[in-house]
């Protein structure tokens, strides 16, 4: 999977005009802590909707949602990252992430802001080896002033939901 990554974050336009290379991150909150994904990964942000449970899914998949005729899996980021989950509220956001033709939803506690950082502000995650199976989801640690933001690797966060996220369209829309 790791094909010679020169940057900590994939999917970034290489800088060609001598400007410092940078990243734009969508920062969201989980259990009072700040996490982020590169803005290229996020297609849109929705308010919470009813999630339909499906059988035989990883523990962190809350179910599926019909996004304009297309069924997408919804990942509960709290469960995925080993944080005690909680029932969503009306203003809980769902971040719709895009990976190629795949789309899936990520439930966070709140969306904070969008920050632009230079490459130098990103550090690789420390190899702590906590062994709880959650550390692989971290792509980098970002320093934005006083803030320390955990940047997630979308591909690894959602790997187990991938089979659900293949482009599937509802052809017979009943309504």
């Amino acid at each position, binding site marked *: 999977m790791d094909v010679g990554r020169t940057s900590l974050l994939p999917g970034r336009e290489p800088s060609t005009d001598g400007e410092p290379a940078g990243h734009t991150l969508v920062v969201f909150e989980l259990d009072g802590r700040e996490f982020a994904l590169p803005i290229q990964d996020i297609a849109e942000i929705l308010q919470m*909707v009813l999630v339909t449970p499906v059988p035989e899914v990883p523990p*962190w998949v809350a179910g599926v949602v*019909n996004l304009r005729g297309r069924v997408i899996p919804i990942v*509960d980021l*709290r469960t995925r990252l080993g944080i005690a989950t909680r*029932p969503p509220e009306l203003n809980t956001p769902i971040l719709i992430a895009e990976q190629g033709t795949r789309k899936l939803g990520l439930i966070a506690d709140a969306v904070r802001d969008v920050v632009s950082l230079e490459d130098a502000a990103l550090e690789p995650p420390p190899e702590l080896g906590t062994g709880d199976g959650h550390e692989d989801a971290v792509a980098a640690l970002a320093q934005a002033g006083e803030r320390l933001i955990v940047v997630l690797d979308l591909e690894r966060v959602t790997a187990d939901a991938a089979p659900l996220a293949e482009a599937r369209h509802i052809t017979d829309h009943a309504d």
Partner: protein
Amino acid sequence: MPTEFALSHAAMAMTEIPEDVLRVLEERARQLARPLDGDAVPETTSLLVLQVGPERYAVDVDAVREIKPREGVTPLPGLPSFWSGLVNQRGNLVPVLDLTTYLGLPSSPEGDTEEAKLVFVGAEGVEVAFVVDGVREIRHTPAQDLHPSVPVEGDGVRIVQHVTKDLVSVLDLSYLLRDPALTVGVDAK
């Protein structure tokens, strides 16, 4: 709702949602499931929003050739006041139209700001540079959000083709550039 299979950990949390919240979430899910009207891709118009005096006007992005700082405009004597003069655009002399004056708007008090731009537009085989007080944004407006301008008899209102929801007037360039009042300065060929 009763299910016959074991719920995932994350799905269990959903069962604790209070009834009143659940009803709202259900309705939202129904709304979200609705495919976009028509084909998957809604028909949108890309508009370049311009600051013209105190007002905002928009033009179809497809008609915009270039945007430059307001520099190098050579005034010509004897033209109506809405003509600022000519600008040399890579060897072509392009007439420069002061949109604020042409549209009969009060000029903005800041006047000569760095934001002032020349917006080169082309339609009907005519190229003109608009003097504007600023370029605000490019927006993608669905067709249903473009409302026809007020159907008043007479010529003046035809310059405005549509009005967006937030009252930005979209200029009808093909009409504007054929306005007889302009032909003094524009040599169409």
